[in-house]
C-alpha cells in the first residue's frame, strides 16, 4: 500500500532532485540541441560570484520576513477580536478567510488591477486624501511593499484561523484565576496567553515562512520581479534562468542553493512538530 505511494513520489520527487543535481554540474541549454557538457562546480561558483544572486537572496528574505511579520501581527489582532464568541461568528469567519483560498496568481491579478496608476482604485482612494497618484509597481521603493501587501492580504486569514483555533483551545480556568489574581488585560496577554499559544504560533510562523520563501505566482503576475530585480525572489530567479535564458545547468545549481535553505527550515519545522506532538 505504502509502497505504491512511495514509488510514485520517488519518481516525481527524487528523480527531479537527482536530475537537477546532475544538471547542475553541466552546461546544457534547452534550445540548442546537443549533449550536456560537464563543467564541474562552475555553475555554483558563478552563482556565488554574481552580485545579482545575493541581491535576490536579500529580496527573498526581506519579502519573507516582512510578509510573515505583518500577517502574524494582523492575524493575532483579528484572532483577539474574535476571542470571545460573537453573534454570527461562523458566517463572519468564513467570509474573512476567503482570500487565502483564491489562486495566488489571481491575487496577483486582482491587486495588479487595483495598483494601476490612473484607474486603479487605490490611487483613486488616495486622491480623496489629496495624495498624488503613485506608480506602485514600477518604482523600486514602492514595488516591494506593494507585493508584500498583496501577500499579506491573502495570508493574514491563515494566521487568524490558526491563532483563533489556538486561543479557543486554551483552558478557561487559567483566565479566571489570573483575573482573580488581579492581572491586567496586558499582563494576562503577555504572561498567560502568549506562552500558552507558543506551539500554535511556531507552527503557523514556520508554515508561512516556508511558503513565503518559495513565493512565485503572485510576484510573477504583479511585477515579474521588476523593476530591475527589486522584487525578484529566488523562485523567480530560478524560473528566469531556466525558462527565459534556458540555462538549465545554472538554474539547477540555483535550485540547490534554495534547497539547502529550505532543508534548514524544514528541519526546524520537524523539530517543532515533534515537540508539539510530545506534549
Amino acid at each position, binding site marked *: 500500500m505504502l509502497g505504491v505511494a512511495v514509488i510514485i513520489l520517488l519518481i516525481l520527487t527524487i528523480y527531479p532532485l537527482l536530475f537537477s543535481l546532475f544538471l547542475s554540474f553541466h552546461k546544457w541549454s534547452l534550445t540548442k540541441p546537443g549533449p550536456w557538457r560537464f563543467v564541474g562546480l562552475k555553475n555554483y561558483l558563478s552563482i556565488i560570484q554574481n552580485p545579482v544572486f545575493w541581491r535576490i537572496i536579500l529580496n527573498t528574505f526581506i519579502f519573507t520576513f516582512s510578509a510573515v511579520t505583518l500577517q502574524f501581527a494582523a492575524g493575532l489582532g483579528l484572532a483577539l477580536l474574535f476571542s470571545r464568541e460573537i453573534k454570527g461568528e461562523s458566517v463572519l469567519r468564513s467570509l474573512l478567510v*476567503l482570500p487565502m*483560498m483564491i489562486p*495566488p496568481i489571481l491575487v496577483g491579478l*486582482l491587486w495588479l488591477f487595483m495598483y494601476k496608476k490612473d484607474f486603479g482604485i487605490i490611487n483613486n482612494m488616495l486622491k480623496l486624501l489629496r495624495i498624488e497618484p503613485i506608480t506602485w509597481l514600477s518604482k523600486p521603493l514602492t514595488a516591494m511593499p506593494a507585493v508584500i501587501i498583496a501577500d499579506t492580504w491573502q495570508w493574514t486569514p491563515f494566521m487568524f*484561523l490558526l491563532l483563533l483555533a489556538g486561543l479557543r483551545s486554551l483552558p478557561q480556568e487559567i483566565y479566571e484565576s489570573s483575573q482573580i489574581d488581579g492581572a491586567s488585560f496586558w499582563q494576562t496577554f503577555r504572561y498567560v496567553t502568549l506562552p500558552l499559544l507558543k506551539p500554535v504560533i511556531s507552527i503557523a510562523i514556520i*508554515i508561512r515562512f516556508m511558503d513565503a520563501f518559495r513565493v512565485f505566482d503572485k510576484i510573477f503576475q504583479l511585477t515579474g520581479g521588476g523593476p530591475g530585480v527589486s522584487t525578484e525572489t529566488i523562485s523567480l530567479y530560478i524560473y528566469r534562468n531556466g525558462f527565459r535564458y534556458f540555462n538549465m545547468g545554472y538554474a539547477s545549481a*540555483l535550485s540547490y542553493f534554495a534547497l539547502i535553505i529550505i532543508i534548514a*527550515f524544514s528541519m526546524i519545522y520537524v523539530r517543532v512538530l515533534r515537540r508539539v506532538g510530545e506534549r
Partner: protein
Amino acid sequence: MNIFRTLVKILYYFGIAVALALALFPICWAIATSFKSKVDVLATPPVWIFRPILDSYRYITFARIAFPRYLLNSLIISSGATIIAITVGSLAAYALARYRFRGKENIAFWMLSTRMMPAPAVVLPLYVLMRGFRLIDTHLALILTNSIITIPFAVWVMRGFFEEIPVDIEEAALVDGCSRWGIFLRIVLPLSRPGLIVTSLFCMVFSWNEFLFALVLTSTKAKTATVAATEFRGWMETAWGPACASATIIMIPILVITLILQKYLVRGLTMGAVKG
C-alpha cells in the same frame, strides 16, 4: 463607565467591519469590474454605480479565448490529480497510521518536505522528463505533476483522520476473520468518509489553483483556466473586463468549497499539524 463600555463595543465592531471590508473588497471589486462596460472599466474616477452587462463574459466564451475549454481542462486535471491522491494517499496514510515499521516517520517527513521545494526548481527537471515522454501539453502531464502537491497532502491529512478511528473496531474485525484489505475497504474507509471528502475538496482546490506547472507544461490543448486568466495582457493595456470575468468564474467554485470546508480549514492548511 457605561459610556466607556459602549465606546469599546463600538470600536470592537468597527475593527471587525474594517477587517471584513479589507478582506472582501478586492474580490468584490473584481466581480463588479467583470460586469462593467469597456469604458466603465477604465473610468477615472472609478464608476461605482453602473448597469451590469455581460459583454466580458460573452467575450471570454465566444471570442478568441475559449475560456470554457480551459475550465474543462482545469476540471479534468484537478479531478485526475485528486483521484490519484485519494487512492494512493489513503493507502499510504493507512499504512503510516496502523503499521509499525522502521523509518516510518522519516518517510512521512520526506513526503512533507516535497511540499517545500520552490515550484520552478521542481518543474525544471519535470519539463525535461515530460518532453522525453512526449507528454508536453497533455492532461496526463499535469495530473501527474499536480500529484506532487496532492499526494503528500492526502497522506498527511488522511493519516490524522485514520488515527482517530478506534483501533478496537479494526481488531474486532480482525478477530472475526476479516482480512486487512477487507478492514480497510469495509470499515476504515466508510468510517472516515468525512475525512475523505474534506481531503478531496482540498486536493481539488490546490490543483485548481496551480499555475506554474500549467504554464510550463502546457501550451494550447491542455492549458488551464488559471493560465488563461493571465493572458488578457494586451499590447497597451490588459483587457481588464474579460480578465476579471475569468477570475470571477475561477473563484466561484473555490468560494463555495471554502464555505463547505470551513470547519476543516485549519486542519487542512496545516496538513493536520493543528486540529482546530
